[in-house]
């Protein structure tokens, strides 16, 4: 009954989406205020319908209603409640429901907070959002209905893939989706802007918070995914350049470019055509990510489902949405007025450089991900493009990008003095050069990239801090003045600082992982292994019964100078349904390194199952790796802080006064 209600709500959502797209778009074209006014209420109705469908599916999961095929395939009564709920989106059909409910939420949010938009722009944004929703709802209803029933109903479910039963992965897909779907809204803004024929500072001010929100969610989603791969897959690695990882990384790179180019549109009324193109392409890459994952067109860690029908449908959706957007772009973009002029050496110039490098980086990742497919289609045989390609193409692009990241914020708008900016960074230059030389000396014969990575991280973090120090006149004014200025810094400036420092911290962590030490050996209980100054004693393995698995838990005593520091317990879990073994690495995280232990298979001689068994053990010492995720957290916080600034500025009472002050600074139209 509840499931049927959910199904019915989905069908209703489709019809509401038709209304939500057609009437407001028609109204905007005819300047009919009544039709345009339909938009916010239609968006609310859409949210209600999708919300009911999502709630119905969640209910089926929570109550373990195995008469619903989707629940039967992905759930089990023994599963902890957290994973029953996360099972809702841990599969193809449910994740699409999450997608449409998020899209509906964002569409409705434009209705709630968009009172200051011109009525026609608001109607168009919500209308375009409705159009995209139609595509996804059709996809769900025709190829991926999560409410299909089974008769007779099975007594027990098949269980969620144990690899996915993990707190990191429970929240990884929703975060990614909030990011992807957030970019659907910037796409809607771009299309609406093209339809309006007017893109100005006000438009950019509206788009930026959504880009920021989507970017912050995507950053969090990617970081969670990488963290999960790090501790769950048990290889000690955190990024594999896997096609599906790349699929989420490409929209992130382009979204970062969009985040920066929208600033230029807002502040300087320039780069409009470029920004609109970026907005369309960023969402295109989000859809492409979905397509690559769902069609199984590329071989990947994540290829759980290979379904050509679904792949074809997503391809059609991609062609319609992106093709339509780009066609509109080809038609309308030439009519957009070019905006303010600027010198190459200026804040704008820096942001253009940022955009060029990020776009090129996206293109190299894109090529590396899809090249095997291209080659195969023309009959060139199968090749695999691995990390060497990405390291050789991606890192050289990141070096100038990071170099510019520290300088850019010091440049003035329109025309800047690069010499002056570099002079202000002299101390940073000294520390950077000194630091990398020190690394080169201390780590003779070590990884070649290490001094470079350290230099990049130092330069970026310190350079960014110099910019803040200048803003608050640190050491130049009395401490109290500096503190007051620090507190009163605009939130957007704080966001910039956090975002760039976070990026620097992440680079530090990635560089640190070059120094990972790995030990693989077979150990008998009582054996001691040395690793990075620790003595690690293997004490034995005992069996333990978990909620829905049987665990073999090893005990390792970590000692330093004969004193016990920690006891670590890595596990191997054998799940019953579906039958599968997972490794639970034991990770001791200090700020500056991780100690990472994995229990392998016992090396049992025929017939002998004694306590003297030798066990395969892998140990890693991973210096600075925690900084990768610390950096991501700082970046996300930066995004959120910056977001709070936007909301403050576009708050209802001041909405007339503030735009008037900034937007008319250098009007181009």
């Amino acid at each position, binding site marked *: 009954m509840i499931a049927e209600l959910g199904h019915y709500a989905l069908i209703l959502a489709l019809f509401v989406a038709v209304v939500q797209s057609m009437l407001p778009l028609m109204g905007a074209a005819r300047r009919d205020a009544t039709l345009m006014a339909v938009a916010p209420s239609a968006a609310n109705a859409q949210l209600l319908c999708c919300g009911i469908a999502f709630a119905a599916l969640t209910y089926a999961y929570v109550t373990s209603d195995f008469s619903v095929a989707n629940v039967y395939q992905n759930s089990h009564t023994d599963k902890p409640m957290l994973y029953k709920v996360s099972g809702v989106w841990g599969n193809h059909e449910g994740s699409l429901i999450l997608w449409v409910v998020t899209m509906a939420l964002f569409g409705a949010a434009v209705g709630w907070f968009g009172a200051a938009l011109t009525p026609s722009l608001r109607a168009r944004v919500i209308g375009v959002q409705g159009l995209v929703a139609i595509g996804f709802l059709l996809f769900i209803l025709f190829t991926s209905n999560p409410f299909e029933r089974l008769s007779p109903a099975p007594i027990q479910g098949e269980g969620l*893939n144990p*690899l996915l039963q993990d707190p990191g992965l429970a929240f990884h897909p929703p975060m990614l989706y909030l990011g992807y779907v957030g970019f659907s809204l910037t796409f809607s803004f771009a299309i609406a802007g093209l339809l309006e024929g007017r893109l100005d500072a006000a438009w950019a001010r509206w788009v930026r918070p959504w880009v920021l929100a989507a970017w912050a969610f995507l950053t969090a989603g990617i970081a969670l995914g990488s963290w999960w791969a790090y501790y769950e897959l*048990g*290889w000690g690695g955190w990024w*594999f350049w*896997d096609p599906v990882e790349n699929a989420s990384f490409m929209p992130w790179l382009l979204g970062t470019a969009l985040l920066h180019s929208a600033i230029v549109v807002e502040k300087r009324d320039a780069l409009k*055509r470029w920004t609109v*193109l970026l907005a*369309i*392409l960023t969402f*295109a890459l989000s859809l492409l990510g979905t*397509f690559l994952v769902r*069609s*199984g*067109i*590329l*071989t*990947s*860690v*994540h*290829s*759980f489902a*290979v379904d*050509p029908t679904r*792949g*074809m449908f997503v*391809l059609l959706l*991609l*062609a319609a949405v*992106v*093709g339509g957007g*780009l*066609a509109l*772009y*080809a038609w309308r*973009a*030439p009519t957009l007025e070019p905006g303010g002029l600027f010198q190459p050496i200026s804040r704008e110039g820096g942001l253009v450089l940022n955009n060029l490098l990020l776009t090129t980086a996206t293109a190299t990742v894109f090529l590396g991900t*899809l090249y095997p*497919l*291209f080659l*195969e*289609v023309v009959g060139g*045989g*199968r*090749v*695999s493009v691995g990390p060497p390609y990405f390291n050789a193409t991606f890192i050289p692009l990141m070096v100038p990008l990071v170099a510019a990241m520290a300088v850019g914020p010091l440049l003035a708008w329109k025309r800047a003095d690069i010499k002056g900016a570099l002079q202000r960074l002299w101390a940073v230059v000294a520390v950077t050069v000194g630091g990398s030389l020190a690394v080169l000396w201390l780590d003779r014969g070590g990884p070649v990239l290490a001094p470079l990575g350290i230099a990049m991280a130092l330069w970026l973090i310190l350079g960014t801090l110099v910019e803040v120090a200048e803003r608050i006149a640190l050491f130049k004014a009395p401490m109290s003045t500096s503190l007051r200025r620090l507190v009163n810094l605009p939130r957007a400036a704080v966001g910039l600082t956090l975002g760039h420092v976070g990026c620097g911290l992440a680079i530090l962590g990635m560089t640190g992982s070059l120094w990972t030490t790995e030990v*693989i050996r077979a150990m008998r209980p009582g054996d001691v292994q040395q690793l990075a100054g620790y003595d690690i004693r293997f004490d034995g393995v005992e069996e333990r019964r978990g909620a829905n698995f049987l665990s073999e838990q090893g005990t390792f005593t970590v000692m330093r100078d004969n004193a016990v520091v920690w006891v670590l317990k890595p596990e*191997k879990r054998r799940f019953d349904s*579906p*039958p*599968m*073994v997972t*490794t639970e690495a034991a990770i001791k995280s200090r700020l500056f390194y991780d100690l990472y232990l994995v229990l*392998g*298979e016992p090396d049992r001689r025929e017939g002998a199952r004694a306590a003297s068994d030798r066990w*395969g053990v*892998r140990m890693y010492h991973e210096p600075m790796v925690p900084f990768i995720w610390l950096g991501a957290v700082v970046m996300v916080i930066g995004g959120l802080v910056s977001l709070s600034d936007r909301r403050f500025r576009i708050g209802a009472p001041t909405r007339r006064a503030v735009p008037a002050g900034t937007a008319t600074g250098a009007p181009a139209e």
Partner: protein
Amino acid sequence: MKRLVFLAPLLLFAGLVGWFVAGMDRERQLPSMLIDRPAPAVTLPPLLTDRPGLDPAALAAGRPQLVNLFASWCAPCRVEHPTFMALAREGVPILGINYKDRPEDAIRWLEQLGNPYARIGTDRDGRAGIDWGITGVPETFLLDARGRVRWRHVGPLMPEHVPSLRQALAMAARG
């Protein structure tokens, strides 16, 4: 001329969609191509020192056997692994092809999860994968006594697929 610049993204995208369509077609043409034909005559070096690799003679061994393409980086392979361990315990001969993998990763993977394979050939660049016409890993083929492909399974081989495998095994054993 200037319009062309704005048209370029659309044209590029149209080309891309064309590629995808071609790519998807390829995916769908493959499934039945090898059925009842001799298995591709591949010679692959061994992964482990104590188990031989693959050669054409090993594929026609005078009794039905399974060929499984796997990789340590492939999560579904991990999912299907217990099924192969169970089959190996029953005495079903299983040949492994380690697809696009680093040998040290694959060896570790087998040490960790157990080794159900009688022979393992390494296919580092994925060429054998093309000869077998796989769409990805894991994939499993059943060969009869003369080395002809009799049955194919795409994706993880789970307990629910075993009955159909047994049927195919029985048919293959009869010739």
